[in-house]
């Protein structure tokens, strides 16, 4: 447990020392989501309708920007070998790295979402649902993304390959996440969407750290 916390703390500290990489992903999210209202114009009905999809797609893409960093630096300087050889289970350390990635790349999106939502003229209820859906969905994005980051370790042109591997896996999260916001804005029941997002989260939480840990071990062999 101590080791997991140490990993989370270390990754956050490294991010603080090199803020630009993280800020790039966040600015990307803000800029992309702001371009739509500017490009489409003041058609409030249309904006409300496309808001969930646009915000979710931007969230997927900005998560993807930070993924490459998850293991690559540790792979290059030999730290991953040390983590594999630590007396703690490697899957738990990988979980720590995923958690750190979410804190840096996922949580800020959840917090920024209401401000972005205002640009799309979303009402208060939809904003709440959007935040809740992102809160449940972005950890799944970090978890699934770690598999791609681990599988493409040491591969040339890995980031493009990783996008191709990971984006299809993000489709269920996109459908239920955006669906929940849309359903709430037209007054439909949203519990189904949230149950499915929750199920995805629990499944990913149970299996992904173990899968990613094994993928990393193969990469450093």
């Amino acid at each position, binding site marked *: 447990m101590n080791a997991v916390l140490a990993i989370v703390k*270390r990754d956050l500290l490294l991010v603080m020392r*090199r803020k630009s990489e993280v800020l790039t992903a966040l600015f990307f999210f803000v800029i992309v989501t702001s371009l739509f209202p500017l490009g489409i114009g003041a058609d409030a009905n249309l904006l409300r309708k496309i808001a969930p999809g646009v915000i979710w797609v931007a969230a997927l893409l900005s998560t993807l920007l930070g993924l490459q960093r998850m293991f690559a630096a540790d792979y290059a*300087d*030999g730290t991953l*070998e040390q983590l594999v*050889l630590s*007396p703690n289970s490697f899957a738990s350390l990988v979980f720590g790295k995923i958690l750190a990635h979410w804190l840096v790349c996922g949580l800020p999106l959840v917090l920024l979402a209401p401000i972005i939502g205002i640009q799309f003229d979303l009402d208060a209820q939809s904003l709440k649902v959007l935040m809740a859906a992102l809160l449940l969905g972005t950890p799944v994005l970090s978890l699934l993304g770690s598999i791609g980051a681990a599988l493409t370790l040491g591969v040339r042109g890995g980031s493009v390959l990783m996008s191709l591997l990971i984006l299809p896996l993000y489709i269920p999260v996109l459908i239920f996440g955006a669906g929940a916001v849309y359903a709430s804005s037209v007054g439909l029941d949203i519990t189904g969407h949230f149950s499915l997002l929750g199920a995805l989260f629990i499944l990913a939480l149970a299996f992904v750290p173990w899968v990613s840990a094994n993928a990393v071990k193969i990469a450093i062999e």
Partner: protein
Amino acid sequence: MTAINSSTPQSTVPMLEARAITCVRGERELFSKLDLQVSSGECLHIRGENGVGKTSLLRLLSGLTAPESGDVFWNGESIKNDALDYHSKLLFLGHRDALKEDLSALENLRLYAAIDGVEISEKEAFASLWQFGLKGREDLSVSCLSAGQKKRVLMARMLTRRAQVWILDEPFNALDTQAVHELQDLIVQHLKGNGLAVLTSHQPLALPQLRVLDL
């Protein structure tokens, strides 16, 4: 009688053992059916030309890679069976320093202590860095240190890790003469404390209980 002998003193029991290991990298077989034994208090110096498989052998012994055939044993138990237990006694230093450039020497040291599950106090961490001539540089980020100074941070880690098995890949690289002596002393202390070491080096070593394996 033999049964009694084999179960008595710890120091005579071979501790790290490789039985008939074969290593294949890519298409090439680097070595085959290699046996070796290192007991506590002993140091094994692996020598050989570049590319002969020294680093590969060290990685096999540490469990980072699995041998093509054969197995590595720690106290008679395959290291695959209880990997975490073996890892808790193992310190492996590869040819990359595994230090975070953006963090200071002190932060790196304390981070590894947390990951390795060793408790070290702030005082111990400072003392170990000072011992290897890093006084005044504890809070400098590692990217500002020279290659030799980074090695010295690793020596501080070797001291604080308190591992029984040291597997070191070219530990003497980039060190000045003074530091070479300090590292040799560190290894001697380690061996006296019932530890064992396996290392590669192109320099002749002056260590007690040294055995040489030519690949």
